[in-house]
């Protein structure tokens, strides 16, 4: 399980390759499916171009919540590996904000677990975004995008 915060830019696909390589031979033999989500900071999310963003969190509580979400996913689905990593601090467009991934025998469980991790991390983990725009304005992001319809 690779769960936690990153205070500096990181390469999502390398992290996922590492997570897969960390599988035991038995788990690897049983893994038929992995479902992955990578969230990236966009430059065009508001009326003016976003130059950078500050991702605030609640040290202690945020890590605890992420770990609990990963544990909950492992209780609910038969997973072989889980990744749930979230960026904090100053972020530039194009940098990875969040990686959620689940490895399982079959695709149904992998898909469901990945979706669960993405949505619970977004709606329950204490993170707050403040955007700094090219026009000199800066403001807190006040609302989450809604969860996708199933």
């Amino acid at each position, binding site marked *: 399980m690779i769960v936690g915060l990153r205070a500096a830019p990181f390469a999502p696909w390398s992290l996922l390759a590492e997570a897969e390589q960390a599988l035991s031979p038995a788990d690897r033999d049983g893994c038929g499916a992995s479902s992955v989500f990578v969230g990236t900071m966009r430059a065009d999310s508001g009326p003016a171009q976003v130059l950078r963003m500050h991702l605030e969190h609640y040290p202690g509580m945020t890590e605890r919540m992420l770990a609990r979400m990963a544990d909950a996913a492992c209780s609910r689905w038969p997973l072989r590996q889980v990744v749930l990593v979230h960026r904090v601090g100053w972020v530039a467009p194009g940098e990875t904000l969040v990686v959620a991934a689940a490895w399982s025998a079959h695709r149904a469980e992998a898909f469901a677990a990945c979706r669960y991790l993405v949505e619970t991390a977004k709606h*329950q983990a204490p993170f707050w975004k403040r955007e700094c725009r090219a026009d000199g304005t800066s403001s807190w992001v006040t609302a*989450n995008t809604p969860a996708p319809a199933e």
Partner: protein
Amino acid sequence: MITVRFFASLRERMGQEMRLLPAGPCTVREVWDLATDQAQPPTHLLAAVNLEYADFDAPVADGDEVAFFPPVTGGAA
């Protein structure tokens, strides 16, 4: 002693990041009133006691950390 913390836009709005209150059995709501001089709580205000989400009626004891913050906005688009 009870530690009170404010995060994100709420920290800016309240003009304070952390505050210590004298101990004494009370609720999250009473901690808010004491820490903010009875400011009107913003809509969708969230609270946590000792790093766990908590209701406004939840009890608070000596040594607890109580945090107030706005709705979370992490994750991706």
